[in-house]
């Protein structure tokens, strides 16, 4: 345990990416009470689209990232229009399973179009190598991740709590029928929810790719979605500030457990599961929820 400062920074840096994923999961859950298992794969798709342009066609990183995010927006809208809307009256379990279907559809698409081979998604550049914090080099990709998490959570907070539309979203989450009767545009709320979550997934995918070294079909779903789910659970599903805190907590717990048990691969994942169990037992509505179980 001799490198606590470095692993603290590493944990917080990774935690911002987990927070982005958890934010998307919580946003969808808040509005629909369903868990979006496609969140990870939307991020993978965005990363692959960006790689296609940046890595294969040597386009500027911003161009590739924009294309990746555009693809995420399209997928988000498709999920709203062709999954969530037709299943408005279906059980939430059914909708959750439908998102699983979307995830595997995207996986198949990625494997078919981009192949199963791992690819290197170049990191974004800031014109310098990075900033050393407590002995850990915060490279541009981490700086972008931190900025993205801050901007995303702040934007969501402002939109949801300071605008009529956002309040409508929250009202729909509480009681969608009543909200509809009061004039809240259900279709727009749904579109905002799914597209917003998809954008968050896309941003996470673009930033997670370089930190993971390579991207490949299912890379987000296979590793990072789990941490995002843990973060959302720790923060309280549907609690947006909780998702951010949850992401940072997961990042730190993971980093410290890796540092402590670095010679025991797989143990950090077990510790994360123990964290989930502990939170569910002690504070089942999340760490920020008022009142314990």
């Amino acid at each position, binding site marked *: 345990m001799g*490198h606590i400062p*470095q*692993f603290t920074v*590493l944990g917080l840096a*990774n935690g911002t990416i987990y927070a982005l994923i958890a934010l998307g999961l919580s946003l969808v859950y808040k509005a629909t009470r369903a868990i979006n298992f496609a969140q990870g794969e939307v991020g993978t798709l965005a990363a692959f689209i960006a790689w296609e342009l940046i890595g294969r066609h040597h386009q500027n990183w911003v161009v590739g990232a924009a294309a990746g995010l555009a693809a995420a927006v399209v997928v988000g809208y498709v999920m709203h229009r062709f999954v969530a809307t037709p299943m408005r009256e279906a059980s939430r379990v059914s909708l959750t399973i439908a998102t699983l279907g979307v995830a595997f559809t995207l996986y198949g698409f990625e494997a078919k179009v981009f*192949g*199963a*081979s*791992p*690819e*290197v998604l170049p*990191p974004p550049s800031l014109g310098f*190598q*990075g900033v050393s914090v407590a*002995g*850990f*080099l915060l*490279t541009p*990709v981490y700086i972008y991740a931190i900025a993205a998490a801050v901007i995303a959570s702040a934007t969501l907070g402002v939109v949801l709590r300071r605008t009529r539309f956002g309040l409508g979203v929250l009202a729909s989450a509480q009681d969608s029928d009543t909200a509809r009767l009061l004039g809240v545009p259900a279709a727009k709320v749904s579109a905002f929810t799914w597209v917003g979550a998809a954008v968050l997934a896309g941003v996470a995918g673009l930033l997670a790719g*370089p*930190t*993971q*070294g*390579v991207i490949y079909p299912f890379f987000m779903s296979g*590793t990072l979605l789990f941490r995002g789910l843990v973060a959302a659970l720790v923060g309280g599903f549907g609690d947006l500030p909780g998702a951010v805190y949850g992401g940072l907590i997961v990042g730190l717990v993971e*980093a410290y457990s*890796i*540092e402590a048990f*670095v*010679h025991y*691969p*797989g143990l950090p994942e077990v510790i994360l599961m123990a964290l989930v169990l502990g939170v569910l037992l002690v504070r089942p509505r999340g760490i920020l929820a008022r009142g314990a179980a």
Partner: protein
Amino acid sequence: MYESVIPKAGRRGVIAVVCLGVLVAACGSSSPNAASKTHQETGPGPSGTVSGQATSTTVSSSSTTQAGGGTSSALASGGSGVGSSGGTSGSNNASSGGGSIAGGSGSGTVSGFHYTPTHLWSGAAETQGISASTITLCMHAATVFGEAFNERPQDLGVYWDWLNANGGVIGRKVNMTIEDDEYTAQGAQVAAQECESLNPFLVLGGIGFDQDPVVRQLAEQDHFIYIYTMADAGTGHYNYSFTSSPTIQQVGRWMGQAELDRHYPGPYGAVYVNDSAWVGGYTTYKAWMDAHGGKSVDQNSYTTNSGGDTSGFQAYITELKVAGVKTVYLWMNALAMDAFVEQAANQGYYPAYVTPDGFNLVTQTVGKDIDNQSPAPKPTLAGWITPAFDPNNPNVAWWPEEQQMINVYKQYDAGHSPDDIDWMTWLAFEQVTDLFKTCGNSCTRDDIVGIFHSGWKVTTGPLCPVDFSANPNFGGSLINLFSAYRENGATVWRQQATCQSSL
């Protein structure tokens, strides 16, 4: 044509093929108390022309099979003797397709070999997979990763196209089927069973330290001939499995030698797969380091759960960086290694790397981080069983053979720029061809096993000589050493030592 013929045969596939070839390359002494055969092989040398009969390769109906076809007017003396072995003694002066295989691989090296067929099969089983006109081979390889190596399926078939168009080998054309092993042990088992269902003459194994031991076990259980690439030593004794590559234990020790003898700076560290199929390549490395001044490896070693496991890299890189480790031994599959190097660069960490995986994946994907111009204190050092593909360097001894292969690719696969994957594949298939030449026209499965058990010795082109006389299962005891260099905007391997038993 190959798009409909061979499934995605990726770099792994190629490598596997190469390794197969290497494996095939060894066998020497004969057993005195059994019926024996002597095969006299003659043929053109490595500088032969590429031309020959333009017989087009026939593609079988299988979507995964590249068939040599059955018409074969050029296949001269071929298969008349099939099935006649099993105790037949005397001289078997077979020719290799009437000598029409122009530009063959150092053909004189297989001449006069004296071997004793085994008696592992009887009846039709003895000649399974070989007919008067064709030889059926099947290979498992990680074709799913073909794109990662800039290798299309049709690129892998060029050697057989060329060989079949020029008469095949021992008078037969070769049907090669490639099954995707998905680069996993489980996938390899399934792929090998798919191969078995085709009743091939041989099953070949591509590169894959996770895959080959599993199939080796299956071969011993199901009694099929398995020629594979580099793997751990296993039990050390097999009836049906053969490799002309060194074991991973040997390679681990060599890399430790090379690292210290070439003054790669400490502190030293390692990231390795802690799995029975892999760990031998670390323990011998560590033992060498411990004994020769590299003890820092002890406190800077980290493990993964499988060849492709990348989950701990971020933390390991942080640990290594904080500890000031300057040279890192990477012992994992090439794709994971690729991820490690890339991720380390993204975390601002540029150590020197040492790895036994000296083929082009690393060079092609993360070249800027491993060559002699990166911030690393030394360029990446690697060992491998085939010589470095360095076609712009006419000073290497194997330059003519490289050019020959390039010319064949121009003729048969003009859209593809051959690389070191093609080079490895080419040489591996040449070694397989040499095995058949050694076996002769009346080749059976018992003959093939007999060749290995009789201590086959062969030198195929620029491949290191192999010798199965000391151990009928393991014929390789030599290695090449490469270093990464920047040249004309690209990173290439430059050979530092050739076919050494000690680095």
